[in-house]
């Protein structure tokens, strides 16, 4: 960052301030000229189709070759993927049997149940006991409530299928991330090699790598789980290196002085000492896995995700909403539970170690007895084994009725609103973006890059934008930009004022924090359902869903930005007689601008990732490309579109970060 700041500081002295507006004006003029003269220079206005590189075909061909002909010496690539799938299938099947289907002998119709799955009472009981152990009875109550809802609303079967894949994917993701993280920590070379891969993986929308996984592993729960693990892995790697790096030097020195070997130092000293940092990673893996639930169902995961997807496709909002809520509750329960485990200090001291084992581990005892009791009772009373169907509640019909009523009575209002926004705001902006000549846009981006980071950044940004043009994705990318830009704009316009208010009023802040914490645990799809219910498909719906999903970030960063200002500065301002308004405009906002811009950056990234999901409601941008590619199992198309989205995210990120660094530098808070 300091390097970036230095570069930026140098570059801002290189170009005198006065000519900067002229250069921007020149670029704008260029855009207008190219647009007007598009008959004369057609290649500069729209990227000529005959120049595009067949990157999609290359990728498709490569994956096909990989799948059919590639050999790794002893075995072929295909055998490798089959092997991986075969190995992963076992634990997944076992978890599914344990939680959902029960253990069976025989195949298909002739299957005989030899051991029933854990009953709903058992699962709920065990998780409740775990919550009490990890924190207190209040968390126990929350978790118990979540699972009761799932049972009562008839989502139990699907939820357990989802849970079984989570139960396997999370430990695998954690273990893999931990190992990679330790490797990266130990070998800087390795770290340098994987960091860009991790960056790309976090910006490429999940859909993009769903397609190759679909081709390599097929349409089945194992493929879905592999996609989940890949998606959830990068934060764990990052958290691991970060947490290991934060272990106090003295602790590491102690380990070396005690004569630890390298392995002992890692596993006996550093990993335990980094525990709390690692647990943050574990929590993120859990949350991301749950985020993937619906997406993974597109390549074969069953459970709640598939229920939502089916409902969405058949516009059965009632069922979809219920399943969405079930996913959300599952996410909340697992999130709170894992956070409680993370925050839990090592077990409090028990002075007399000589008590019998069952007195020392009361929670373990409680959990086992819950399982045993529910199992025994399950044989006697079927209602304990399986939540009785006649006691299930469903609000599906009610919701559908309500929707119908709303649509009948308020159709005009809703439609009018939608049409007005579309006609007066969205369509004109969309036209403008699509009409922008690509040469002018690339020039503008390159100039911005040059201002902020000289040639390196200018070249990088121009190359990334060029790639989008060259692969023939320009128009789709512009559509993406318009949707994403508009959503970011609205999200910031609403979120930043809310953040400012919350930062200045403690009571409001507490309310806002609770709301954004909850919103952040919701899987992205949860935002889509209610919007679709009201506004049905189209750009407007997509934009609203993106705004709803991304608005958390400007709020959070604004609050943080204002709160992290050195209190003595605020005191000094108040002491010198600032009114509250002056305090805001003259002190707090200017100092918080860097953080707010980071929030904007995050909003853009999140909007881009959400756009892929909103493709489900029929937008016409890159996300849609990926989605279509998935439906057609067209690897090249999906991967190229996915990479283009990632490149857009990277361009935004690389331009905003040095700007923030330079601004901080100017404020002397670098």
């Amino acid at each position, binding site marked *: 960052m300091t390097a970036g700041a230095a570069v930026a500081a140098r570059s801002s002295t290189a170009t005198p301030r006065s000519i900067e507006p002229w250069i921007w004006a020149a670029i704008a003029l260029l855009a207008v000229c190219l647009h007007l003269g598009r008959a004369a220079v057609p290649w500069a206005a729209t990227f000529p189709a005959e120049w595009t590189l067949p990157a999609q075909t290359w990728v498709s061909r490569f994956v096909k070759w990989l799948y059919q002909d590639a050999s790794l010496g002893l075995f072929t690539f295909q055998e490798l993927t089959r092997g991986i799938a075969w190995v992963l299938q076992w634990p997944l099947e076992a978890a599914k049997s344990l939680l959902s289907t029960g253990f069976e002998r025989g195949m298909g119709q002739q299957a005989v149940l030899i051991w029933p799955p854990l009953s709903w009472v058992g699962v709920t009981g065990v998780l409740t006991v775990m919550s009490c152990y990890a924190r207190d009875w209040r968390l126990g109550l929350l978790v118990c409530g979540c699972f009761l809802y799932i049972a009562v609303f008839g989502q139990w079967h699907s939820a357990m299928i989802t849970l079984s894949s989570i139960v396997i994917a999370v430990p695998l993701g954690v273990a893999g991330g931990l190992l990679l993280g330790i490797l990266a920590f130990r070998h800087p070379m390795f770290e340098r090699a994987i960091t860009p891969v991790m960056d790309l993986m976090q910006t490429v929308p999940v859909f993009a790598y769903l397609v190759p996984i679909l081709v390599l592993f097929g349409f089945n729960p194992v493929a879905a789980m592999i996609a989940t693990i890949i998606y959830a892995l990068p934060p764990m790697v990052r958290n691991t290196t970060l947490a290991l790096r934060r272990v106090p030097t*003295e602790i590491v*020195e102690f380990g070396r*002085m*005690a*004569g630890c070997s390298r392995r*002992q130092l890692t596993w006996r000293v550093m990993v335990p*000492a980094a*525990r709390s940092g690692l647990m943050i990673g574990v929590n993120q893996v859990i949350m991301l896995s749950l985020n993937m639930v619906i997406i993974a169902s597109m390549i074969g995961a069953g459970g709640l995700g598939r229920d939502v997807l089916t409902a969405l496709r058949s516009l059965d909002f009632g069922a979809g909403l219920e399943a969405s809520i079930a996913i959300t509750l599952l996410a909340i329960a697992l999130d709170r539970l894992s956070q409680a485990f993370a925050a839990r200090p090592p077990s*409090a001291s028990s002075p007399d170690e000589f008590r019998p084992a069952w007195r020392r581990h009361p929670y373990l005892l409680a959990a086992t007895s819950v399982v045993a009791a529910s199992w025994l009772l399950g044989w006697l009373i079927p209602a304990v084994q399986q939540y009785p169907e006649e006691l299930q509640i469903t609000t599906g019909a009610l919701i559908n009725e309500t929707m119908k009523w709303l649509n009948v009575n308020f159709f005009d209002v809703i439609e009018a609103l939608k049409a007005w926004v579309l006609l007066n705001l969205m369509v004109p902006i969309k036209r403008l973006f699509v009409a922008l000549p690509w040469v002018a846009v690339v020039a503008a981006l390159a100039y911005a890059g040059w201002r902020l980071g000289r040639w390196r950044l200018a070249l990088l940004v121009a190359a990334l934008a060029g790639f989008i043009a060259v692969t023939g994705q320009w128009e789709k990318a512009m559509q993406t930009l318009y949707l994403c830009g508009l959503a970011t704009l609205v999200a910031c316009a609403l979120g930043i004022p809310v953040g400012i208010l919350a930062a200045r009023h403690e009571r409001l802040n507490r309310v806002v924090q609770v709301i954004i914490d909850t919103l952040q645990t919701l899987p992205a799809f949860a935002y889509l359902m209610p919007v679709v219910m009201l506004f049905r498909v189209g750009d407007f719906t997509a934009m609203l869903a993106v705004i709803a999903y991304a608005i958390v970030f400007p709020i959070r960063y604004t609050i943080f930005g204002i709160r992290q200002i050195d209190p003595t500065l605020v005191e000094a301002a108040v002491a010198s007689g600032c009114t509250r308004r002056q305090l805001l405009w003259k002190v707090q906002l200017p100092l918080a601008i860097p953080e707010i811009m980071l929030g904007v950056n995050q909003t853009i990234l999140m909007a881009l990732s959400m756009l892929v999901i909103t493709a489900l409601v029929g937008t016409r941008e890159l996300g849609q490309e990926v989605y279509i590619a998935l439906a057609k199992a067209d690897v090249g198309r999906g991967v190229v579109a996915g990479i283009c989205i990632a490149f857009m995210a990277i361009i935004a990120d690389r331009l905003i970060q040095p700007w923030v660094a330079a601004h901080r530098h100017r404020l002397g808070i670098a």
Partner: protein
Amino acid sequence: MADPASNDADHPVRGARSIKLACRGLWKVFGTSAGRFQEMLPGTPSAADLHEAGLIAAVRNAEFAIHEGECFVIMGLSGSGKSTLVRCLSRLVEPSAGEVLFDGRDLLKASERELIEIRRHKMGMVFQGFALLPHLTVLGNVAFPLEVQAVERHARETRAREMIELVGLKGRESCYPRELSGGQQQRVGIARSLAVKPDIWFLDEPFSALDPLIRREMQDEFLRIQSVLKKTIAFITHDFDEAIRLADRIAIMKDGEIIQIGTPEQLITHPATAYVSEFTRDVPRAKVLSVRALMRAPGGQATFAGQVRADARIAAVARQIVESSQPHAVIDGSAGLVGTIDRQQVIDLLVRQDGGQERQK
């Protein structure tokens, strides 16, 4: 810098005891081109020379020997290189040049494996920030160094309990570090560093993070433990009061260089530079100086109010001397009468704390 050999000779504590740990021409420089600093700047470059070359000199040409059973205190202001020096001695930090002789063999030539063995059996270290492992109980922490050597559970826990008792924490074995006060945590750190019966004991500002009363208590505890175990010690502090309480000899560092090594008394009576005398200015002299440093050569007197030993601290005999108007005879075990000391000399010393010349030969 004073010659270590000549310094040793006139110290009463050590006599013929063998050298446990010594270093010669020890350098540690930080910076990107630290590996090549000797080619770049041959000889003994000054801190300014190194700074110009973009290097930070943390330890410059250190040279001293620590004797068996001696408490060697390293002092200096923050950033003077004390921690780095001690970490070079245990090779936690790889020195840039020089030799570290431990029991006569060069530690810098030891392989990774040998180093691990030496650290497992011969070295113990106490840290300023305690460095306790948060996930282990007191017992687990103290037994940890034995655990990594794969000492069998019963044996290591027995030893750990002994050590916990030695530092006065019996009954707190199953507490976790966060449940203990700072002083108690450092007791655990001390117990842990002693669990392997080290030959040499490194302490890096062990009491700096504690408040004054606890610090005093821990120093007493440390002296008690040392009177039982008689370890060879390298002790870092930036507190001169602490140094004179604990030290046999003190090394004073400034900008990575050791500027003087000597007993507390030598540092006060013969400061090598103005920096050292500035450093020792506020020290209560009566507690450091011995009668020998203050006495006059015996004159023709025949009547004495009493006798005092030449190696007694002034503070210990001040009352006895001041209560009489007659001078006292100063005797030295074998040599008999070596000088005289009277009330006026002692009062002068007690009253004047301005750091002027006390030597009244």
